[in-house]
């Protein structure tokens, strides 16, 4: 891991925490689900930087794809907006 890759990892970690913060503050559940998909994709890039390519493939396909599909189905069958 060179210094350039290290700065890329720092930027990806910041992007991941910003996406998680968006999930916390938003009232629209569809926005929350898509932001959590972004968090999972950035996590897959971090796994690839940490020399785990098989885990990165699994995280990007199952963690980001299948989980997001299940959440979208649930938001469609229930309510979209979080009322407080």
């Amino acid at each position, binding site marked *: *891991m060179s210094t350039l890759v290290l700065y890329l990892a720092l930027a990806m970690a910041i992007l991941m925490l910003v996406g998680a*913060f968006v999930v916390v503050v938003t009232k629209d559940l569809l926005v929350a689900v898509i932001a959590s998909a972004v968090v999972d994709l950035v996590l897959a890039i*971090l796994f690839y930087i*940490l*020399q785990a390519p098989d885990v990165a493939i699994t*995280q990007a396909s199952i*963690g980001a794809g299948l989980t997001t599909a299940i*959440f979208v189905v*649930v938001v469609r069958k*229930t309510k979209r907006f979080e009322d407080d």
Partner: protein
Amino acid sequence: MSEALRTFFSPQILGPEIFYGSSVGLFLIGLYMILVKKNLVKIVIGLSFIESGVNLFLISLGYVWGKTAPILNKPELMKEPVKYAVDPVPQALVLTAIVIGVAVTAMALSIVIVIHDKYGTLDISKIKELKW
């Protein structure tokens, strides 16, 4: 830049701290969502954030600075894999944990759908009678 600051920003020191810090941050955000949020879908998203944080922590524990992925495609890797490759045991563990995490999330969301059919709401402060 002073000497201590340059030592801190060197890749060998800063490299693991980025991954440890971001995994702990993801864990804490998920814990906050489980403890504070009232919406059931948000609580399940927080549960999956906690799983992701633990997975990133395990993978970054197995990482060794300057070594390659544990795929034995070169002769020197075949001869001495410990010298050149990172630890493959946390990677196999996390690979299993991701799939199990998806199953746990699907189970929790099916319970959320049943609760919404029964009570007509996703707010946990409005779900009063706890039997069905």
